[in-house]
C-alpha cells in the first residue's frame, strides 16, 4: 500500500503537473547559436533573461489636475508635490494638499518614516483605486477622499522648493511636448 503511495507521489508522476521549464536542451541551444559553451556558463533562452525592472517615470502633475479628472489619471505613474495636511499611522496614508486640492497618498511601500505636518513632500507612485479600509480616516480628511489614491513608491521632503519656478518649469516642458 505504502509502496503504491510512494509510486503515486513520486517525482516522475508529478512532473507533468509541475510548471514546464523553459530551458532549451543544451544541444538544441548550442546548435541554434552555432558555438560551444563552457560548462560554467549557463545557456539562457529568451525567457531566462535577468529580471529587469522597467520602472516608469513619474510624470510631474499638479494636484488640481488629478482632482479635475480622476479617471483620466487612473493607472498613471505620476510625481506630485504638496504640503502634508495630516498623516494616519494606522492606515499608513497621508493627505497631501496644494492650494484648494487634496489627495490621499498610500505610504505602505515607503516603510516607517517620520512625517511632519506642514512640510512640503514630493511623492512618486501610481494612481489607483482607493484602499478598501478607509474607515480610520478622519471626517475632516474624508472630504478630500477621492476614488483614486496615490500608491507611493518614492517619497521625499522638498522643503524650500520654489513652487512658482517648479510650476513654470513644468509648464515650459509641456509647451515643448516633453512631458
Amino acid at each position, binding site marked *: 500500500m505504502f509502496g503504491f503511495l510512494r509510486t503515486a507521489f513520486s517525482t516522475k508522476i508529478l512532473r507533468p503537473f509541475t510548471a514546464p521549464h523553459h530551458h532549451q536542451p543544451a544541444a538544441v541551444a548550442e546548435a541554434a547559436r552555432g558555438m560551444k559553451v563552457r560548462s560554467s556558463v549557463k545557456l539562457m533562452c529568451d525567457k531566462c533573461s535577468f529580471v529587469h525592472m522597467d520602472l*516608469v517615470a513619474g510624470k510631474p502633475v499638479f494636484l488640481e489636475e488629478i482632482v479635475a479628472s480622476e479617471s483620466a489619471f487612473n493607472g498613471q505613474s505620476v510625481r506630485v508635490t504638496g504640503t502634508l495636511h495630516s498623516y494616519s499611522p494606522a492606515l499608513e496614508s497621508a493627505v497631501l494638499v496644494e492650494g484648494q486640492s487634496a489627495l490621499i497618498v498610500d505610504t505602505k511601500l515607503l516603510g516607517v518614516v517620520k512625517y511632519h505636518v506642514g512640510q512640503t513632500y514630493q511623492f512618486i507612485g501610481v494612481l489607483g483605486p482607493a484602499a478598501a479600509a478607509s474607515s480610520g480616516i478622519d471626517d475632516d480628511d474624508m472630504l478630500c477622499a477621492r476614488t483614486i489614491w496615490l500608491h507611493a513608491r*518614492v517619497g521625499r521632503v522638498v522643503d*524650500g*522648493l520654489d513652487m512658482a*519656478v517648479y510650476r513654470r518649469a513644468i509648464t515650459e516642458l509641456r509647451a515643448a511636448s516633453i512631458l
Partner: protein
Amino acid sequence: MNLENRPCTRPQTEWGLDPLFWVPAKLFNGDLTRLVSAEPLSSTVFYIGNQHVIKAVELVGIVVSVERRALKMIYYQIDDGTGVISCVHFTTPTEQAEPDTLECYRIGDSVCVRGRLAVYRGQLEVIIRECEIVDPNQESLAWIERLSIRKFLASSPFATSTQ
C-alpha cells in the same frame, strides 16, 4: 516632441571638432532612449539632434531604485520625469577595502550624475564618473537648462566653416 536624431555625416576623425563630444551633454532621460548608435563605436558614442556626437552625459533626477551587487558595483535608477535610466557606480579598490567610505545614495535623493554612456545587454546605461546630491530647486533649473540645450541640438547642425 521627440528630438530628431540624425547620424553625423562627418568622418570619425573630425568628431572631436564638435564641442559636445568633449563635455557631458546635459540631456533629459527621455532623449537618451532614442539615441542613434555611431558605428563602429556603437556602444560608446551616439548621435543626437542635428548630427551632434556625444559620449558622456549629465543627468539630474531622483534616485528611484538602488541595488548593491556585493562590493563591486551599485546600480541606481534615475527618474527625471521624462524617463528612467540605469546608472552604474563601479567601486574603487579603496572603497572595496573600506566599505564604510563607500557613499551610497538612497531612494528619494535628488542627484546630479555625470558619466559616460554604455550599452550592456542591449540596455543603455550610464557609467558614473561623478555623482552628487543637489537641491530640489536645482532640478527645476536643470529642466529649463536642458530645454534650452535641446533647442540648440535640434536646430544647430554640427558643421565646420569648410562645409
